[in-house]
């Protein structure tokens, strides 16, 4: 046990040091104005008296945001705290992976290989980590059939939902299928009923606590509204971000053999190549079902595969390799599962086993290679740790580039000089982190304006601006247009297209005073 604790501690420490999170390393790396910025902005608003969901459109669960607010409250707001929280969150996810590997009875070598991949590839995030914890608890609950673990499963399932509604739904789906399956195959249906009952009790316990908390703070209904809205919008054409999933038919349009071959090794194709593992898993499960090998290990792997396939569906709303990392953990673990099966039953003459092991290793190496720039940066880790840091206020002790430092400090000084504490400002492009740096409130609910893509949300945004009259609106010509669509295109209402009467410039920003805007009489309605 002691040995296990030491290993866990070692893994935790290493993952925090190496920065296994997609957010980056806690010692260095430019701040992500959207991914990290949104959490920073939300927690800062809460410090300024705003309420989650009621005043802020939060696309994550409350437990993903509230801890940052607590950290801000204890240590004062800084970007470092956000990164620290996200890194710790991913490290906790890696611990879950360790337990899952244990549950799958990986050999030491294979366990080390898989964990190494996870330490070198930023594949875990807090949301995914919570999902993995829930899957782990599900596996144990299944193995032990104990009421305690089923109760715990209920708790962690709801907690996962409160961290991330999409991963929560995936977990609930897997749990539902698990219980349904158990009702079918179990000899004593009453046992399953009690396990199910304890699961419901666990879930209900967290639900009651959550309802009391959110209702007493007055944002329960808003939480339901926003969560429902996120589901509806993310499954339809109204999804704020996303491009078409790469179409394999593209290869048919390639003019020459070389480009066709290249496509096979492209990042787009990697999405399909990774998917192969789920097909293999399904076929393997079919095979084992008929070979009388369906003992607990296979059933656990079945649940895990199901979870993996569901998480993969997240990619359908995304494009490119960015979000690919979010769905990687189940894929890597599944590859690891087969690596373990092949290597532990390896026979000298089995050429096929050898080829498959090699293919799995190549896949792992390819993933690590994808993260090559970040890995190289790690060699400078001692330098960043030792280096004295002078950052603009609220950045914290992270080594960031000079250009980002200049950008942050100039906007901070402009805002401090030209606005009062109670003034509102609005960043038209997607840079929510600036609200935290400037410690000013957004007049709208949308810190990442591209999220407010539907007409209803655009009008809400406009009404917020009209109501709270921000003193300045900042337009950043260097801001990253999400999915290649700039906000000037996404938010076309006339308010945003009025010519500038007086423009100021603060580095990349063009700053417009609200007084310069004239709302058209007809508002484009007629």
């Amino acid at each position, binding site marked *: 046990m002691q040995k296990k604790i030491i290993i866990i501690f070692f893994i935790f420490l290493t993952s925090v040091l190496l920065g296994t999170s997609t957010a980056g390393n806690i010692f260095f790396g430019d701040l992500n104005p959207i991914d990290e910025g949104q959490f920073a902005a939300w927690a800062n608003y809460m410090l300024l008296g705003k309420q989650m969901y009621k005043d802020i459109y939060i696309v994550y669960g409350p437990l993903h945001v509230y801890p940052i607010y607590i950290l801000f409250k204890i240590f004062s707001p800084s970007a470092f705290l956000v990164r620290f929280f996200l890194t710790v969150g991913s490290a906790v996810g890696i611990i879950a992976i360790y337990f899952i590997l244990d549950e799958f009875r990986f050999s030491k070598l294979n366990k080390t290989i898989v964990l190494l991949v996870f330490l070198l590839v930023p594949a875990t995030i807090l949301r995914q980590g919570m999902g993995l914890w829930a899957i782990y608890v599900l596996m144990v609950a299944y193995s032990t059939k104990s009421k305690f673990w089923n109760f715990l499963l209920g708790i962690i399932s709801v907690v996962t939902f409160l961290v991330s509604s999409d991963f929560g739904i995936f977990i609930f789906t897997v749990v539902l299928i698990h219980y349904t399956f158990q009702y079918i195959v179990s000899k004593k249906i009453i046992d399953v009923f009690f396990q199910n009952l304890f699961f419901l009790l666990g879930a209900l316990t967290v639900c009651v606590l959550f309802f009391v908390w959110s209702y007493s703070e007055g944002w329960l209904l808003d939480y339901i509204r926003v969560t429902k809205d996120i589901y509806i919008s993310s499954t339809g054409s109204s999804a704020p971000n996303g*491009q078409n999933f790469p179409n394999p*038919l593209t290869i048919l349009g390639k003019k020459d053999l070389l480009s066709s071959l290249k496509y096979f090794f492209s990042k787009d194709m990697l999405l399909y190549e990774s998917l192969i593992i789920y097909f293999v898993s399904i*076929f393997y499960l079919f095979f084992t079902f008929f070979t009388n090998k369906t003992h607990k290990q296979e059933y656990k792997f079945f649940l895990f595969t199901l979870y993996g396939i569901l998480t993969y569906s997240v990619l359908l709303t995304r494009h490119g390799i960015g979000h690919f990392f979010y769905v990687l953990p189940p894929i890597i673990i599944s590859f690891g599962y087969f690596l373990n099966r092949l290597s532990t039953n390896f026979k000298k003459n089995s050429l096929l086993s050898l080829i498959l092991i090699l293919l799995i290793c190549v896949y792992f190496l390819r993933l690590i290679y994808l993260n090559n720039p970040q890995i190289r940066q790690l060699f400078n880790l001692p330098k960043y740790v030792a280096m004295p840091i002078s950052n603009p206020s609220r950045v914290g002790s992270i080594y960031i580039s000079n250009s980002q430092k200049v950008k942050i400090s100039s906007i901070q000084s402009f805002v401090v000089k030209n606005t009062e504490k109670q003034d509102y400002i609005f960043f038209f492009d997607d840079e929510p982190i600036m609200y935290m740096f400037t410690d000013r409130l957004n007049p709208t609910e949308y810190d990442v304006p591209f999220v407010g893509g539907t*007409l*209803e949300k655009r*009008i809400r945004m406009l009404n917020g601006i009209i109501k709270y009259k921000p003193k300045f609106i900042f337009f950043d010509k260097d801001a990253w247009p999400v999915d290649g669509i700039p906000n000037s295109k996404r938010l076309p209402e006339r308010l945003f297209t009025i010519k500038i009467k007086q423009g100021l410039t603060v580095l990349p920003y063009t700053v417009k005073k609200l007084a310069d805007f004239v709302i058209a009489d007809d508002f484009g309605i*007629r």
Partner: protein
Amino acid sequence: MNTRKTLILGFIVFIFIFTISFFVPGYFLPTDLLKNIPSFSTDKWERPKNSLLADPVFQFEPWRHYAKERFLEGSFPILNDHSSGGVPFFANPQTSVLFPVNIFYYLLPLHQGLFLIHAYKIYLLFIFTFLYLRSLKCSYSSSLIGSTTVSFSAFPIVWLLWPHTNVFLFFPFLLFVTEKIFSDIKFKFRWYLLISVSYFFAILGGHPETLFHILILHVVYIIARLWKQKNKIEYSFLSILIGFSLGAFQLVPFFEYLKNSYALRDRLTHPGEFFLPIKAFVLNVIPFILGAPHLEFYKHIDPSTNFQESVGGLGGYVGPIVLTFSFLGIFVLRKNFLVRLWTGIVLVLWAIVYNIWPFSLLSTLPVFGLGANHRFIGFSGFGLCVVFSLTIERLISKKNLYPSTKKIIKFIIFIILLLTFLSLSALLLYSKSSPDVVKNFIQFFIQHILLLSITTILFLYVIYSNFEKMYKVAFIIILILLQTAVLFWDYNPFTDKKDYYPEPSFVSKLKKLEQGSILEVGNPVLPENINLMYGISHAENYDAMEVEGYKKKFDEIFPKKNQWGNPDDITYENVKKLGIKYVISDYDITLAKQKVQAIYKKILPSIISSRPISIEFAPSNSNLRQIRILTANFNRKNNCTFSVSLFDYKTEIKKETVDCLKIRDFMYFTIPFSVTLDTSKKYTFVFDSKNASSTNSIALWADEQNNPFMELLYKQETEKEQFLPIWNEDNIFIWSLPESLNSEFLGNSKIIYQTPEESLFLLQANKDTEFILKETYFPGWEAYIDENKITIHNADPFIKVSVPKGIHTLKFSYKPYSLIVGIFISSITFTAVIILIFRKISKEDYILMLIENIRKKIKKYSWQSHFLVFATAFVLSVLIFISFTYYFPLHFTVSKTSTSINWFTINNYPKQQDMFFFIIGFIFTTIFTVLFWFILLCKRK
């Protein structure tokens, strides 16, 4: 014949019916009925083949069409926004949106779909009855005879196009399952499961009244059959409950609609009205005693009913052979429990249907009082067929025959001969002194009597002949078909493709106009529901339920309706109140109306030269423009002409001649008649015809004193708001109300999108105000301002919300809780049923053996071999899927409800396309690969 052969034969018949569908001569729907509406037959009128089949043309087909359109759009038809300001669509069970047989309609070309829906209904009824009779230990032959009798008896034939038969066909199946439960010593889960599944499909069938009848009779049958096996009764009842829970997603919305319906309120005020007159019982024996609607002669037996209800409802009509021999069976097999049971059921049902005391008291019970109890009789026909089958079983095999049966049969023959002789003699005598029409009818009737008598006597002969059994059975079936199917041949006719909802010029005009609902004034022009075929909205609805709020308001605004249920007199203000955009009338509604005689009680003798009809009047205005009469054409094609002359004392002032072909039954006819009159004088209109005869003439409707119905229309000088004329042709006028909008709002508003269940408006209000959406207020509607849910109010009958000052989005969304609750109940039940099924299957011996066999085969080969098979199949499946998607690309469109500006909308790329390909691809690849491996494994020895 063993089970396997029977199944193969059943499948062959299934394929045969499908093959026939490719060659059917037109559409299996009596759309020629539309010709009775003047607007659909301005050029040519022909007598419809069966004028009683209105509902299939005026309700079911437009609903099916609407559902298909919505499915093709990729949406589910929860609401129909084209009728009376929006009415629940799926909640109306008669739409049968999810009835499985309708899949043929949704997927196949129209002519095939329409044929297959109904052909497969008969087919299923046949199969289910056959199964039931077999379960009663009837032989293959007598089961065949019995199921033929049931399938082609009156009830399933005359109600074939109705959803009643969707439900009815499950009745024999439920009885079959009950018999299986009765005969099995052990508890067998599958039979109880089949009860649930049957009720589930019967619910989807879409006729709650028939479902209620089935439930009552099935419960009676269960209790009677399983009386000594109480636990089986309990399980059976539980299965029924599960069946209803499975169908909760259809039932719960229905109950909500029923609760808010006008029909329920109306029936509550007139309970116990649905019975057949006792004299209609004669139709059980001689169905065409007064002709039939699909034949040359037809007259209803009683004003309270018609052939459809009394013969179909009689369902009782199964042919004299079946009737006689079921009575014989009652006598011969009186010791048989089933015979006694069915005899009891048949007698009780007759007593209920014909309202015989004390069974008439049933109508005082809560649910019975509201239902169409006369349709119970369809089940009595079924009961007779069952008794007949049991009897025929004995007669064919001649086993254990009652000693005096032969004598009884001889006696029956004698009685039939005697009755036939007497009736024919009487008829012939009577016809000698009768007019031509009556003579012709008697001739037809004699043929009818002879057919029934001869076939019955032939049947008796065949029964006692020494034919081989196979021939005997064939003869019996032919004779039964002669008394049923042949008599009702063409009752449900095929019609020409060109008659399938043709597009008259006024419809083309309406389709080109800005969207808005229409109101018919006077004659039916584009009756409610028919509008669905053309994507036009109608101010009225016809779905046997109707939203109470809207209907009440409509009746309040238009309290007086004509014989077609249409308002006859309207005002601009009244029409505007309901948000109606267009009015279609048979006369110029801007003219002032003088009702010279407005009562229509009877048809006057036809207009012929020796019998002109006149009516005197004092004009209320001087500028006469049109005259409006109510006509009759005796449901025949008349080639005469008639004239309308205006006389000032004896001087003819003006005369107009009208072609009789333009005249329709019970329809208004407007004649342009511009003349200046002196209001102090009295004038006379005279209707005359020089070339008409008793069989080629038209007539006028009139009051009891023989004064014809007549309205005069005068030009009036007015500066009031007026209807704007848009179109006029052949007595059809289209008017518009430019100020009538589909919403009322004091501010700027713009519709962003509008679907039946959802609409989004962009509003700019300069002060706090209200927004009225001209959509009928009904539970389930929700409104959101800037995504915040707000309270909606009933603006009688529309939806009203409060809008604060400023710029807002306002979304209306129809999300009925009843549907959500129903889906929830159905899902829970469905999951539980699936769990139970799998639990049972996993314990079945044959499954365990199958798995064990496969296991043995798998172990023969190394895992590497299996891997290679999987890999090959996987690559193959991927190639197939990619090739398929390449050569048959599917193109989705971006949803019109998407207001987002994102990558998808900018690139006009529907996200669902990826989801569809990805999910389908994943499923296809998995199934193909696993099946490939599995089949390969099974093939290996």
